């Protein structure tokens, strides 16, 4: 190759690189994760969201008027992706909606070995049945215990809230948000939601506890909660820490290639060191050891 041409190409390539990087960086920031702010002080426990969720996603639709489901604390299940619970607290009854938190760095996604659990660029964590092999490692890993398996099916699905991903793509809000009659649920980007949440806490410092659940929990989540009582009184785990859960496996996964590079070479070297083929002759000459006697 002509030397001048080579230099020219190198220079062009070098010049192009930083430009590409800035372009990538700017496009990254324009797509913000979305989420929902749940203000539990506003919820009246009407369970419209439960019904709307099940209708939108083809799940079991509860009979809200007569099933007395609020009498006991329920968990989300393989039949219902969201449930509302009533907690009796010092400040009266508090109703709390429960569903997938849509973590920033979801444990279930890091756990999935087939990418069936998938963190979409928009924020929702979705499940793909064409890939899932049903190992249920996501259920073991999720700090919020959200993924649920259909144990009584020959072809079980992993059931969890998808934040109505298909509705979002059609420009709509999640079904539960649309159904909420009291503005308990507010849909938006996490940045906007955090501003709204902080504003509410600052303007009513006596009404709210000064914590926004989901801001940092398990590394932060798409769904955020405001409450008038401490969060451990209304069914939330407050011992989850602020570390994103995939970080717990990071050290191990980083060491994997190191071991795969290093150990075979080390073992081969050891094996060569321990090779006694040539030693036997020497020992015979000296006449005082036989091979293997030292074992």
């Amino acid at each position, binding site marked *: 190759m002509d030397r001048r041409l080579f230099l020219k190409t190198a220079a062009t390539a070098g010049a192009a690189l930083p430009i590409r990087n800035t372009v990538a960086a700017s496009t990254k920031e324009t797509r913000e994760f979305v989420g929902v702010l749940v203000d539990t002080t506003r919820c009246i426990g009407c369970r419209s969201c439960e019904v709307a969720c099940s209708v939108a996603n083809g799940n079991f639709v509860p009979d809200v008027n007569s099933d007395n489901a609020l009498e006991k604390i329920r968990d989300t299940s393989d039949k219902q992706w969201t449930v509302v619970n009533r907690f009796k607290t010092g400040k009266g009854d508090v109703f709390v909606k429960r569903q997938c938190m849509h973590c920033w760095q979801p444990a279930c996604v890091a756990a999935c070995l087939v990418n069936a659990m998938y963190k979409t660029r928009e924020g929702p964590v979705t499940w793909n049945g064409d890939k899932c092999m049903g190992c249920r490692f996501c259920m073991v890993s999720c700090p919020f215990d959200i993924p649920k398996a259909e144990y009584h099916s020959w072809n079980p699905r992993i059931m969890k809230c998808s934040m109505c991903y298909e509705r979002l793509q059609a420009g709509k809000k999640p079904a539960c948000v649309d159904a909420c009659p009291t503005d308990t649920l507010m849909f938006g980007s996490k940045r906007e939601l955090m501003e709204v949440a902080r504003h509410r806490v600052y303007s009513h410092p006596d009404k709210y506890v000064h*914590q926004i659940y989901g801001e940092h929990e398990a590394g932060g989540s798409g769904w955020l909660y405001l409450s008038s009582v*401490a969060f451990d009184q209304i069914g939330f785990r407050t011992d989850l820490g602020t570390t994103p859960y995939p970080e717990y496996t990071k050290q191990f996964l980083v060491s994997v290639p190191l071991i795969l590079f290093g150990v075979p070479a080390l073992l081969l070297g050891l094996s060569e060191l321990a090779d006694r083929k040539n030693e036997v002759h020497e020992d015979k000459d000296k006449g005082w050891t036989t091979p293997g006697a030292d074992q």
Partner: protein
Amino acid sequence: MEFYTYVNIFETKGLEYLLLLSFLALFILLVRYLSAPKGKRRVPEGKPPRTTN
């Protein structure tokens, strides 16, 4: 709720080093115990091993 307090993640380091030293001492004892002088260990020639199957 956030608390801004000092957390020392190396609080137990001193104890850990003590444990390490005691481990090394005990480990030497164990290895010496396992490779006791051969004269003591050897079963006398001709005597059958204590346990067989």
